[in-house]
Structure formats: structure tokens, C-alpha cells
């Protein structure tokens, strides 16, 4: 009986396993293979050596990190207090969350396209800033580093916030009450009770935000200066693949990109395991 139940479960898993192997594991392995060979299929580390000795390509790591790291800290750093504030719900929560989900749903391309006009030199934002005497001349929000960072903020913040809101509203209010009854101040309650319980949520939303920002592509092209200051690593990989048709070099860059992302994720997970011990989330955790 047990055996048959087990093989039944296995049969049900077959389509999903075939799917993941064919469309995810195999392409990844194929990319790794391509990155370690020359165009004729001979084994070579040349693609990696080329990347690390080509100043223009190597610089993309620094460029991408200098975009992704600050905006990830900003997004998650803002999302924590906002999620905390909204943990018991506020007036107009539905409408607020609606506006937060809109940029995620519309996607980077539409947001970037809209930002080009709205934040352009004659756009409404600059007209407003000048009318309010906050700026004398139009501020350059687009076609530079700032433009890419803003677009990542507009999309990353709601993502982090909605995720953390799910976590924080799953923490039982009794824990907070108990802490206050025992004489802890609001700040103590936050740091000693709520924050440790939010750590897993913070860790995972940090990881996802970073990974999203590190692989930024369309907005770095549309809103940045893809030839130089915002030539991120995804652009380098894309150019090698589809402009120079060197799939081996492009695969090597994809692998480096994935390796850096996994490295950052593991650092965050180590931090999480140091901060978070035991599960005390009650309800819809």
C-alpha cells in the first residue's frame, strides 16, 4: 500500500520534473558547457579569462553592483517601517495596495517609457519642482544612473513591501501585547519581538530585490546610458550573444552573473540564520 502510494506520488511529479529538467536544468548545464568551450567545442577557460581581463566587461560587475546594492537597501529599508505601520491595516489599504501593485503588473518597459516623458526636462515632475522652487533648472532624471535607480525603486519597493506585509500581518498580535504588558517600550517591542520574526521575510525580499536589480536590463537600456555609465552585466551578456553572436562568451557572462547572485543570496541567508532561531509565527505565517 505504502509502495503504491509512493509510486503514485512519483507519477504525479513526472510532468513537473521533466519540465524543470528540460527547460531549466538542461539550459543551465548547456550554458555552463558553452562557457567552458570555444566555438569549435574544445575545452577552454578563455571565455572567463577574456571577461576578467577586458576592462570594459569587467567594469560591468562594479556598475551593476553600484546600481543594485544601494537600491536594494533603500527598497527593503523603506518596506520594513511601512509594513510595520500597516500591520493591523489602515484606512484605504485596498487603494494603497492597488497603486503598489500597478507598477509591478505593468512591468519595466511601460514604467521606463512613461518615466522618459514624465521625468524628462519638460515633464510634469520638473515643472512641479520648478514651480515649488525646489529646483532652479530641470533635474536630469533620465538617461543616467539616477533614472535606472528610480525605475528599480518604483518596481522593487512595492515588491518588498507587499511581501513583508504578508509576513508582518502573520505575526500574532498577542506577542506584541505580551511584550508591552511586561513593560517593554514600543521601540523595544519592535527590535526584540517583531523584527526578529520579520527576519526571514526581510532576508527573502532582500534576495529577490537584489537579484531583480542585479539582472536589470530593459530599464538600463531605455533610461540609462547603455554605452557606458549604466552598461550593466545583462547588457554585456546580451551584446555578446545577439550582436556579436559569440554564444560562448555570452554564456560565460551569464554564469558569472548567476554566481554573483548566488553569492549574495548565500551571504544574506547566513545573516538570516544568525538572526533567526525558531518559529513563533502564529496564524497565516
Amino acid at each position, binding site marked *: 500500500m505504502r509502495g503504491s502510494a509512493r509510486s503514485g506520488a512519483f507519477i504525479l511529479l513526472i510532468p513537473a520534473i521533466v519540465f524543470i529538467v528540460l527547460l531549466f536544468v538542461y539550459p543551465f548545464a548547456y550554458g555552463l558547457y558553452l562557457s567552458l568551450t570555444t566555438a569549435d567545442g574544445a575545452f577552454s577557460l578563455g571565455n572567463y579569462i577574456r571577461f576578467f581581463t577586458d576592462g570594459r566587461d569587467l567594469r560591468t560587475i562594479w556598475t551593476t553592483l553600484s546600481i543594485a546594492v544601494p537600491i536594494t537597501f533603500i527598497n527593503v529599508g523603506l518596506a520594513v517601517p511601512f509594513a510595520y505601520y500597516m500591520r493591523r491595516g*489602515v484606512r484605504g489599504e485596498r487603494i494603497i495596495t492597488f497603486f503598489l501593485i500597478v507598477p509591478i503588473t505593468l512591468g519595466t518597459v511601460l514604467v521606463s517609457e512613461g518615466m522618459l516623458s514624465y521625468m524628462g526636462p519638460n515633464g*510634469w515632475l520638473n515643472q512641479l519642482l520648478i514651480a515649488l522652487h525646489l529646483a532652479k533648472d530641470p533635474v536630469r532624471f533620465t538617461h543616467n544612473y539616477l533614472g535606472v535607480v528610480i525605475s528599480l525603486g518604483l518596481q522593487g519597493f512595492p515588491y518588498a513591501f507587499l511581501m513583508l506585509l504578508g509576513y508582518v500581518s502573520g505575526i500574532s498580535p498577542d506577542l506584541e501585547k505580551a511584550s508591552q504588558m511586561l513593560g517593554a517600550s514600543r521601540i523595544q517591542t519592535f527590535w526584540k519581538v517583531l523584527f526578529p520574526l520579520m527576519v526571514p521575510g526581510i532576508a527573502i525580499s532582500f534576495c529577490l530585490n537584489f537579484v531583480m536589480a542585479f539582472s536589470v536590463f530593459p530599464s538600463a537600456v531605455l533610461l540609462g546610458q547603455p554605452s557606458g555609465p549604466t552598461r550593466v552585466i545583462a547588457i554585456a551578456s546580451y551584446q555578446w550573444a545577439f550582436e556579436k553572436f559569440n554564444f560562448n562568451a555570452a554564456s560565460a557572462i551569464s554564469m558569472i552573473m548567476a554566481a554573483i547572485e548566488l553569492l549574495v543570496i548565500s551571504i544574506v541567508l547566513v545573516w538570516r540564520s544568525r538572526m533567526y532561531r525558531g518559529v513563533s509565527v502564529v496564524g497565516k505565517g
Partner: protein
Amino acid sequence: MHGKIKLSGALFAVAIVIYVGNVLGILFTVILNSLSKGWYSGLLPKFLTGEWYQYVSADHDIPNLLMVTFTVAIVDVLLSLLIAFPAAYALARNEFRGKGLLLSLFMLPMIVPPMAYGIPLAMLCYKFHLAARITGVILVNLVPIVPFMILVLMPFIEQVGTNLESAAKMLGASRLTIFRKILIPLTLPGMLTAGILSLVKAISMFDLTYLVAGGKSQTIVVALYADAYAAGARPPQSVDALAVIYFLIAMVSLVVALKFVSPTQMVFKLK
């Protein structure tokens, strides 16, 4: 104490107003610009016109773009339901060695971003002559949707207790009958939720589609990106007109989706 709460409330309200204001600003600029003529400065355009929509429909095969977008989204949702539902059922109902590992493998495509695995995946599509075809676009977009579906479906299946299934089995129902009469009706809300959430995602999927699509297999987002990228090749207002068409589709699907699900379900949650 009271003053403090009010201060944080005020800060909260100001931040929300700034955020919502900018999102609305972006959307209204796109809409107004697509209807404007000679809007180079000032608060509002001087003339309104519908000519950019005519321009865009002459420039692009709009019915084909819409057809591809919806075909890809709907076929992907149905296919991934077929793949994800049995898997979610097996994972929700069974404990076995390596389950955690298998789950992590399934979740990996949601964590590794498309640009990292998309380029080798696209090369495979070119190798097997699937690129620039709608089949290829459908296949690559399954990668992020199936894991998402498994994740959304699992808790719904866990909620349906095993008691009903055992009772039906004792009364002599076959596996197929149990599946048809018990499992499907009871997990229908879950399938609906997962399907709607995935549909909204599928309509706006960009990265993978962009790497694989070409010619007649472009979706509307990819066409929009290509237009925006080649800025200068056509009037910016016509790019905005295409953006508005895309915006309307995405917004309608979002508004319909929000009738059934809450925004926090749109971003996924890992424990």
C-alpha cells in the same frame, strides 16, 4: 506617545501621496502624450488628436500582437496548470526523502532571474528552431510560471483534508471519481487564484519573450520595447499610443484579478 503616532501617520501619508502621485504622473503622461499634438512644454497639450493611434495601427499588426499576447498567456496558464497541479498535489500530500531538495529545485527559476538562464535557454531555442515562433515563446515562459503555480496551489490542496478522500475510497470510489468529484471541485478556488495570478504575470512577461521572440511571434510588450529602443525612428507619441494599448490590457486583467485575489498574493512568499 500620542504625538508620536500622529507623526508617523503623517510621514506615512506623505510618502504614500508622493509614491501614488508619481505613479499616476507616469501613467497620465503616457496617456496624454499619446493623444497630444505639439506638446513640448506647459502643463497640458495644446491640441488633442487620435492620429497616433492610426499611425501605430499602420505601423504594427496590432490584431496579431494582441493575438500572440493572449495566445501565449492563455496557453501558458493552461499548460502550467496541467504540469503544476499534479506536482502540487503530490508535494502537498506526501512526505518523502529529498522532498525539500525537490521543492528548492522547483523554486529556483523564481529566484534566478530570467536574464541569467534566459540567454542559454534562448540559444537552445535557436538550436532547435523554436525561436521566433510562438511555440518557443510559450515554452520559455513556462519556466517562471510553473513554479509560481506550484507555490500558489500547494496551500489550497493542503487545506482540503484527506478525510473526504479516505471516505470516498472506503465507499468504493475509483481514483478518477475521487479526482473528479472531490478534488477538482474543492480545489477550484485555488486553481482559479493560481490561474488569474499567472495570467496577469504572463501578459507582462518581458525578458524571456524578448530573447526568443521575433517577427510574427512578438508579444505587445516586446513590440513596445523595440519601439522605445529605436526612439527617433518614429514619433514618441506613437510609442506612447502602443504603450496605452498595452496598459489597457494589463490594467483590465489586473482589475479583474483583484476581484478574486489580494495584492499581497501577487508577490510570492517563501518560508
